[in-house]
């Protein structure tokens, strides 16, 4: 085997190894600083926060299973609540929230998605705006901590809008029986995660 052939064989693994070597090892879930500016910091913050992605996905599943009017309500009201209370969070400053409160939207929205009970459209709208208010306030206060301000909130809301729109659209297109069951299983797992998180929070706080 010639030296050229050996080099050709080793080229691919060498490229892969270099790629892995330069990949970032640490993931900071909060207070993202991408180096690309506050807009992308805000967007990255949401994408690195499963505690926010899960309830948004559960709301999208619930609304998508209920139908078009519910999906529209969720897609419109969630970003509105998020951006309004995000701005409020920026103004009021950093916030330290207990996991107990973070578990509530997981349990409620995951449970509703799993149960798939028929409900009026206004209920979906109210749930969407309440979720937006809670998460928006948390994200807004985090944005103020790293001085991303309003632009950071706008970056977050942009990704939230895309996420809720994609999830509701995907669920509405899930017409086969097994696919609707699969999304309800995701809701069930979200609720179960929320219940365990509640237990963690209660134990950590020494409430019980």
């Amino acid at each position, binding site marked *: 085997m010639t030296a050229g052939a050996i080099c050709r064989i080793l080229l691919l693994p060498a490229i892969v190894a270099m790629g*892995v*070597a330069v990949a970032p*090892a640490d993931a900071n879930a909060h207070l993202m600083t991408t180096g690309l500016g506050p807009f992308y910091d805000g967007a990255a913050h949401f994408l690195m926060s*499963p505690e926010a992605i899960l309830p948004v996905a559960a709301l999208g599943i619930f609304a998508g299973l209920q139908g078009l009017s519910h999906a529209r309500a969720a897609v419109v009201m969630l970003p509105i609540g998020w951006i309004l209370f995000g701005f409020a969070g920026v103004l009021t400053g950093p916030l330290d929230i207990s996991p107990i409160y973070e578990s509530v939207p997981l349990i409620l929205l995951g449970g509703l998605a799993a149960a798939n009970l028929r409900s009026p459209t206004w209920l979906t709208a109210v749930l969407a705006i309440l979720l937006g208010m809670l998460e928006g306030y948390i994200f807004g206060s985090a944005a103020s901590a790293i001085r991303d301000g309003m632009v950071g909130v706008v970056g977050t809301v942009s990704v939230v809008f895309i996420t809720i729109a994609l999830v509701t659209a995907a669920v509405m297109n899930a017409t086969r029986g097994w696919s609707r*069951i699969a999304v309800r299983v995701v809701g069930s797992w979200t609720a*179960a995660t929320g219940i365990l*998180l509640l237990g963690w929070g209660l134990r950590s706080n020494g409430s019980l």
Partner: protein
Amino acid sequence: MRASIVRNIGLAFVALLLTAGVAEAHAGASGASGFFAGFLHPIMGPDHVAAMMAVGLWGAQLGRPAIWLLPITFPVVMAFGGLLGLVGAPMPGFEIGIALSGVLLGAAVLTEARPPLFAAAILVGIFAIFHGYAHGAELPVGENALFFSMGFVAGTGLLHGIGIVIGLLYQWRWGKVAVRAAGGAVGVVGAVFLWNAIA
């Protein structure tokens, strides 16, 4: 040509294995350190594995709607048991309940028991609380409760899924024998743990 592709893939895989990982001082094997710790937690206990798979087997054996009702409701009920364990609520004899779940669920699969759906759901729900409680009581105070919980739920769901997939063999004649035999094996495992719990 094909051999060279396979060789390149193999070399790339070896290169990936040789890349250095990040050393984390407090990523303990039994600590609540993240998704994988939670994911492994339900998988590492043979009594839990046997019972979770038996639930999947039984659901597949009972057919619709049990086969899809199960993976939706079980995680929530089990998580409720986990919450009781986490907050330290007393539950005497839960280890006997866990062992009994293996015996009874295994026997149900072995004998092809077909009770009314609500009765099956109540039985499985009670066992789910026992299993969830045991896990919840064992969980150490960790630094990332959310990731641990997500992994825990996903691990439990995986065991159900494996049970359901094996249970799908039930539609063939030889598969019925295999599924019933698997139920019998679960019953034996449960009986061993019951003996240990009582003795």
